[in-house]
């Protein structure tokens, strides 16, 4: 009987210990609230909505959002970031999309590399247009075809993208696409920061 109790208690203690080390301790020590004048900008409004769109469409299945230090990979040499990412970079995110596999490039600093929202809209609508032969699937369901009233909307996509587009119509990003692009444009983790000294 005692052996049984000891055994079951041992099992639970192990569970508890692993859980404590990887869930509780990180949430205590890796959550330094940003101090000083150059910390990550808050996530809110469109950016926050865009982050949910990013998650809901499984973008992080192919794209990572972390830059490894120069001695642990070629991320910095590739120009994916100017420094490794640190806990403070993800401070405002409820679930950071670190990612699991790199089928697409890292997006930690995509807002630094590409600043043109129409580039993102074209990429989402027809990735082949920007990277011929890419395996990124098109996200056409994030766009709507609407009647052009008067002049062309500045946000509308170039009409050459869809040959079958009837006259007088234009391709407009849906609110989700607008939010997603706002989120992608906000991804810039290149501000200088130091690991907080204890």
């Amino acid at each position, binding site marked *: *009987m005692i*052996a*049984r109790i000891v*055994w*079951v208690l041992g*099992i*639970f203690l*192990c*569970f508890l*210990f*692993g*859980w404590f*080390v*990887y*869930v509780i301790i*990180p*949430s205590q*020590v*890796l*959550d330094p609230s940003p101090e000083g004048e150059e910390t990550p900008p808050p996530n809110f409004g469109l950016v926050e909505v865009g982050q949910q769109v990013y*998650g*809901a*469409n*499984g973008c*992080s*299945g*192919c794209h990572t959002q*972390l830059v*490894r*230090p120069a001695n*642990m*990979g*070629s991320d910095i*040499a*590739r*120009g994916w970031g100017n420094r490794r*990412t640190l*806990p403070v970079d*993800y401070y405002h*995110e*409820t*679930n*950071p*999309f*670190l*990612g*699991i*596999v*790199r*089928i*697409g490039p890292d997006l930690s600093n995509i807002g630094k590399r590409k600043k043109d929202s129409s580039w993102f809209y074209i990429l989402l609508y027809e990735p082949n247009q920007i990277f011929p*032969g*890419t*395996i*990124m*699937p*098109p996200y*056409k*369901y*994030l766009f709507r075809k609407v009647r052009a009233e008067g002049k062309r909307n500045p946000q509308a996509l170039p009409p050459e993208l869809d040959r079958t587009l009837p006259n007088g119509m234009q391709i407009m990003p849906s609110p989700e696409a607008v939010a997603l692009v706002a989120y992608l444009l906000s991804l810039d983790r290149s501000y200088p920061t130091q690991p907080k000294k204890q």
Partner: protein
Amino acid sequence: MSNPMVESQEWIGSGVSRPVSLDRSFFIPVIFMLVAAFFWLLVSMGFALLGAGKIVIPSLLGSWGWLTFGRIGLASFLVFSYGWGMNGGLAYALYLIGKNAQEPFRGSGYFLCSALFWNLSIFIGMMAVLIGEIPSLSWAGWPDFVLFLLLLNYSLMNYWIVKKLLVSGSFLRSLSHSYLLIALLWFPWAIGSLFIFFHWLVIRGVSFASMEWWFNEGFLHLWLAPVGLSMLYDYVEGRNGQRSSSFLGWLGLILFFLCSNFASASHLIGAPFPLWIVGLGIAARILLILGAVAIGIDLLQRLKKRIQANKQNIFSRYFLIAFYCFLIAIVGDGCIAMPFVSRLVHFSFVEIAFLVLFIYGFYSFVLMGMAHYLYSNFFRKPWLSETFLKITFWTNMYGISFLFVFLFLGGIVQSVELENAELPFSQVVESVLPYLRGAGMSATLILFSQLTYCFLLLLMFLMPVEKEGIEKNEKNLSRSI
């Protein structure tokens, strides 16, 4: 009291000559879970195939948001793990308890009912993922209300099993019971804490990632692996005479169990985590190799003896392959966790290859062997077509081998080319593409194999049962369900 798996049939087997004595009150839920498991397996492979199709033609079915690559990938993954893996594992758990039970299963109706709701919650979860309710991208990818449903139904189903295990105390003597107990106790604990964290958003920032990996690692090494190992040990323990303990077996169990709790952080290398977290993870993962080797030596000695003592049959083939896949996957995982390797292969398909080998080559193979054994016992009649069984086995076998090899080679190419910073990323993907297509073909092969088996099962269900077989072999403890 039990005489499991000492059947001496030909390798495909035409029925079970000396069947396991399992009361109907156990068998009905077991078979229900197994049928559900195979249903989910087909669903998951269907999604996987669609995903593979999207790699060849990216715009395939692209106009529907709910079939986009990211969502079906996750849906396939979750349905495979929870629908196929857990349904099958729980069926086995019930079988293991029922095998030694002295009385009929009184909670049979409750179990069936909660099993039904368990599968319903998986379905709800799958739909939620498809419409985009994704909190994260891993085994924890369910929305919080689905987590709660899963926890509830799991507890209802397993309360009785765990109670039985604890009261009988057999886990102190038998490795198979011990492994099973670990798995059964881990899940409610982990998914319960996950539910609390998701629902009240207690964990945020990078600690979310560490929690996610803690859960993933636990699901692989504290749920799937113990259940799979428990099946292997149940097979080798077979007769009561072999149930006595062996030093290596217990050493392996303790090492494997201890280290699995800490190995998750090796996936976080290069991520924004302090060195000690990553270092602890890597150390645990290397120690895990030792555990796996200890288990391996012990199991191999017993498996050899077991297979020598009996004729080759389909179960022993599945089990043997599963056993080797287990060893390769754990040792491989340990090797690619070393920083000088992981600086290359981290985030590449090499990691995915070992993952696939673990969850398909190891867990699914051992589960398929077990399922085939249980079905044979249930039907009590010769399998309709040996050719079909052979096709199932060999296509499965070749499917997983090719899948692993393609993913592994593709991953090597990807890691080597990624290291060359001058090469644009689009070119890296282009050179990996042929391998991904090859992997897609292999997945098709696996789907084909499962379809064959399910078709055969359907035929077996539809064919009338031979009455004499039942009367002669079944030891009915109670007629009532």
